[in-house]
């Protein structure tokens, strides 16, 4: 059964550094998402992506964040200058239609 995969599973970085979180969505899916979960808090929507552009972003998704689908298979989330409060589990999701979302296992980002 096809799955969404994410790499790395755990990323440790220093404050101010750039990080790129990578996702490989299920191959025939058209809709792509990033969510995050700060420890002990809710899973929160960050951004959705369709037809090579952002379709919606939350207030969390400020200018430090960007997403890209560079080669038709990967979907990346870049944080330009990480802050301590960016430490969280980041989940990628994809869907073939607008109303389904299949999640990856997540990347745990630790900013020190």
């Amino acid at each position, binding site marked *: 059964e096809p799955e969404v995969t994410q790499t790395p599973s755990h990323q440790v970085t220093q404050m101010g550094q750039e990080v790129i979180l990578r996702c490989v969505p299920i191959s025939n899916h058209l809709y792509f998402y990033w969510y995050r979960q700060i420890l002990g808090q809710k899973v929160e929507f960050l951004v959705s992506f369709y037809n090579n552009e952002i379709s919606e972003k939350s207030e969390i998704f400020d200018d430090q964040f960007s997403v890209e689908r560079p080669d038709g298979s990967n979907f990346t989330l870049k944080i330009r200058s990480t802050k301590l409060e960016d430490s969280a589990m980041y989940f990628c999701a994809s869907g073939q239609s607008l109303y389904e979302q299949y*999640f990856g296992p997540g990347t745990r980002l630790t900013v020190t």
Partner: protein
Amino acid sequence: AQSVTQPDIHITVSEGASLELRCNYSYGATPYLFWYVQSPGQGLQLLLKYFSGDTLVQGIKGFEAEFKRSQSSFNLRKPSVHWSDAAEYFCAVGARNSGGSNYKLTFGKGTLLTVNP
């Protein structure tokens, strides 16, 4: 804006006992509702979803959930819990943006289920 409340942070049940996990939502229109499960080190796996029609929906792993509009609830149930059901369970409501071009999930904080032998 939509919201989801899962009142129970942690529930412990004995193996073989029945289970009910509570979920209340707030949403202005007819909601699309979901239950996801997360085992340690794993992603969020979809258990079941409600879009319309029969208010009792069946999911994977023997789970079911009942949509009650009058109570704004979508509680998850299982008649007999197995040790492998120990995990964290998330209820979510889906909503489209005003332009209809996007659909996002709003999650509850989750309920951690412990199963005693």
